[in-house]
Each structure stands twice: as C-alpha cells, then as structure tokens.
C-alpha cells in the first residue's frame, strides 16, 4: 500500500487536465491522465488500497468528475485532506469515493508511517496515533450504501413507477 502526499489547493486541472475533458470520460480513458500535471509517476504506480493525503481545498476548480471517477476506479481507499472543495466533495459522494476531512491526521503523517482507515468505525491510524472522523448525515449514507448516486436513483425510480 502506498501513501501519496500532496499540498494545498490541488485543483481538478492538476488531477485531470481540462484538454481531455471532452474526449475522455470512461475509467479506461481517464486512468493514463490521472494527476498528469501534478505527479507524472502516479498513474503508472497507483494500486488498489492506496491512500492520498492532501492539504486544504483539495479538488478545487472545474466541476469535471473525471478525477473522482478515476481515483475510485484505480481503488484509492480514501483521500484524507485538511479540507475539500465543494463540488469535488459532492462528486465523491456520488461515486462512492471516501473523502475524510482531518487536518490533524494530515499533519501527523510523515513519510514511511503506516496508515489504516476504518470507514465503518470512523477511525484513521497514522503511525501510532489515532484520529476519529464523524459519520455523514443519513441522507448521504443512503447514497453511499446504494453504491453511489445512480444506483440510488435507479432504486428509487423503480419504487415510484
């Protein structure tokens, strides 16, 4: 498991360049360009279960959802940041990608620390330090439990009609 660490204000152009926005939308098309202008080593080396740490305002900028779709598809277990930009946060809920706002956990991490995340209990372990994060509101948990927004909507549409 690799922990990737980045700084503040990482925008969606750095996570997935705008020039590909209207030509790449499937996970297979997205993957080679993931984090292309931020960390050229990421796309080739990311593995299922990896964790990303970042500073404040992660995912700011364009509403493009390819970064979220891409990170979910390559198996990122969680993005732990000091804060997230609003549209990115919503997009992550809608794709079922786990985002955790925990400035203390971000500050506690140094290279080489072992990191584990328990989403059910709301616990992050960084080295020998433990951090707790709160449960999301029930409306959002319902979307997550369905496996994302579209599966959730499919279920409700079926019930209504």
């Amino acid at each position: 498991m690799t922990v990737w660490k980045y700084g503040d204000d990482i925008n969606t152009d750095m996570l997935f360049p705008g020039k590909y926005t209207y030509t790449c939308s499937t996970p297979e098309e997205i993957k080679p360009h993931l984090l292309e202008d931020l960390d050229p080593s990421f796309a080739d080396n990311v593995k299922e279960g990896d964790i990303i740490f970042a500073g404040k305002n992660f995912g700011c900028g364009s509403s493009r959802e390819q970064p979220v779709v891409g990170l979910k598809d390559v198996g990122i277990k969680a993005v732990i940041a000091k804060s997230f930009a609003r549209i990115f946060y919503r997009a992550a809920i809608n794709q079922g990608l786990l985002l955790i706002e925990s400035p203390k956990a971000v500050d506690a991490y140094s290279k080489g620390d072992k990191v584990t995340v328990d989403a059910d209990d709301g616990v992050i372990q960084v080295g020998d330090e433990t951090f707790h994060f709160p449960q999301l509101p029930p409306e959002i948990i319902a979307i997550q439990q369905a496996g994302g927004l579209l599966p959730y909507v499919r279920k409700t549409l079926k019930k209504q009609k």
Partner: protein
Amino acid sequence: MGMTFAEKVLATYADEKETVPGQIVTVHPDHLLTHDNTAAIIQKIPDELNQYGIASTDLPIIVIDHVVPAASEKTALNHKNIREFVNKHKIKHFYDAGEGICHQVVVEKGLALPGKILLGSDSHTCSYGAVGAFSSGIDRTEAAALLLTGQTWLKVPQSIKVILENQLSSGVYAKDLILHIIGDISASGATYCSVEYHGDIDQLSIEDRFTIANMGVEMGAKNSVFFVDQISKKYLSSIGVNEKEYSEVCADEDAEYDQELTYDLSKVVPMIAKPHTVDNTTTAESVQDIDIQQCLIGTCTNGRLSDLQVAAEIVKGKTVNANVRLLILPASRTILKQALNQGIIQTLVDAGAMILPPGCGPCLGAHQGVLSPGERCLSTANRNFKGRMGSKDAEIYLASPATVAASALTGHITDPREVMN
C-alpha cells in the same frame, strides 16, 4: 432570527418556514444547466432515459459552448449526440454552437431570475447570483440523476456578508475588485459558503456583478449573490422578463452571518493573479516587467459588451505589440452583434486582434489558442491553474480587460491607467 438569502431561498424550495446552516434539504431546482458534457451525462443513463424519460422538458438548459465549432471527430460526435437527445426528449431550452457561453446565454435568455434555484454541471454556474438567483455547480453524475428525477439534496450553507463601500476609481474594474477580494480571503476562504454582497452595490452594473459572481467559486463559494434591486430589475425588463415571473428575495436585516468583510472600492487598484492559483494576487504596477506572448479578452468572466468596449478604447488607432497575439472571445452572439454594430470589433481587428467565435475557446485548453511550454498568457478568464490552457510549463496571469488590452500594446504587463487618457 432573520435569514440570509441562501437560508431563505432554500426554505422556500424545501417548503419549510426556516432553515439553518448545516441542515440538509431536498429541492426541485428551476433549471439544470449542462453543456458539451451533456453527451457524457446521457451516456450514463441510456436505459433509464428510455424507460422513465426526463423529469420535465422545461428543467434542462443545454448549451453547446465548450468546444465550438467542434475541434475533432470526437467532439463533433458529442455535439451530434446532444442534438439527437434534445430532439428526442423535446428539450425546451437548447442553444447550439455559436449562441454563446452557457452562463451568458442562461442570463440573456431570462432563464436565471431572482430567487430561483439553478444547478449546473459547470463550476461557474454560480454566475447567476448577478441577477439574484441561487446557483451552484454540480458534477456530471448528479446532473444525470437530476435529469431523471428533477430533485436533489442541498446542505444549507453558512453565509459571508461582503460589504462594498464607495466606488471604483477610473481605470479600475469589477475584475480588479474580485481579484482583490479573492487575494484577501484566499482560494478556499469561502468554501461551502453563500457569499452575499451588501452595501453600495448600486455602483456596480449587471456586467460588473456578473464578473464578480462568476468568480465566487474561485474562493470556494457555493453561491455568490447580489440581491435584486432597481439595476437588476431594469436589466431583466430590458430582456423581456416580467416582474411577475420572479420574487424579490433579499437577506433579512437581522440575518446571521458567519463572517463580515468590508471593502472600500475607492482603494482598489488594477490587480493581477499570478500563476498558478487565483489567490496569488498582486498589483499590476508591481509586475510591469513581465513579458507576455498571448492576450485573451473575453470568456464568461469578461466577454461582455463593456469589456470589449474598454479594450477597444485602449487599442483604438494603435497596433498590438509584434510579440503578442491578442484573442477576443465574446461571451455570446448577442454581444458579438452589438460589438459589430458599435464598431468595436472593427477597432479591435484594426489593432491586430483575432476574433474567436462565442464559446469557451482556449480558456480550458481544448483549442483555439493553447499555450506552448515557456509561453505566458495574460487573460481575463477566471482561472490560471497550471496546464489549464495547454502546456503545464506555460504561465497564465489574470487581469481586467483594460489591463490585458494595455498590455497587448506594450508586450508586457501594464497598468491600464498609464495608457488611458
């Protein structure tokens, strides 16, 4: 306790007496904006669209604007798929390539109105606060769900009161003001918040308000709003909107704001956002020696008539520096026509400018003026992120149309007050 604008609008749409920050409400927005990304959105739900159809033919607003005219076979196919979808589902509000940038078109066509809720799969959907609407960006997946259901959840935001005092000096514009504000509160200073403008807003035209509201997302805001007043009512009436079509929603006098910030407009000077974040601001005067190879005047931030007008006044009878390419990107066909009728386009072309079709153009690096490594662009757009206009080794600086026009003449960043008058 009184309510902020955001609390009030969300209470109305959730059919609640009041709402408080943090509360989650279910709303049926008046409109859902999508653009070229409509093609990818409908690809997510082909079976559901066949089985259930769309929630309403009045809900979607679709504008083809991001890569127009199509730059590749793939983008051409996207546009074709969108047109077929529009015809099949009898979408009422469709604007094809050439009509303009979605945000300008939505406002010009009277689809964004005071007190209404609009959501859009574009981060600059927050622009409609210029006319007193609650508007915010969402992702493609949520747009797909909204197409089917017509409803979504929203968290009631905390609100920031921004009080504007006095008026801007000559040579200083709304763009300088919003860059000044973002530099002050940072790119994340308003994250999740409703930014609500108070004070001497009667000093700001609809076009000024559009520039300011448009950049709300650059400080993280959920929405960014100027309450309806005589100026917006007059504008709406000029585009054929009847007052009965909207409600005059303003924050209550005793609304509770999370933060209060005051800015003296008379103290603002021409500003620049340096690479690679919008809050990396400084005065134009302090970076005058920086040379530039491309100048872009236009986009949804600054592609309106007054923007082109001020640029034309500055370059009139002069010639763009031999080392600079000056690109003009009007925000809509309506604006392009007005600029043609008033001789503005003639003046700009005489000075050496290239005119691009109304659309998003090079702003997101898809076509029409991408940058090579080592190049520097001075732009009136809203973002200067690394790699946004092409190469990650290019640099983007942001400024007002006056600053960009003045700099196009000299070949380096120039305080417009030096060349005006």
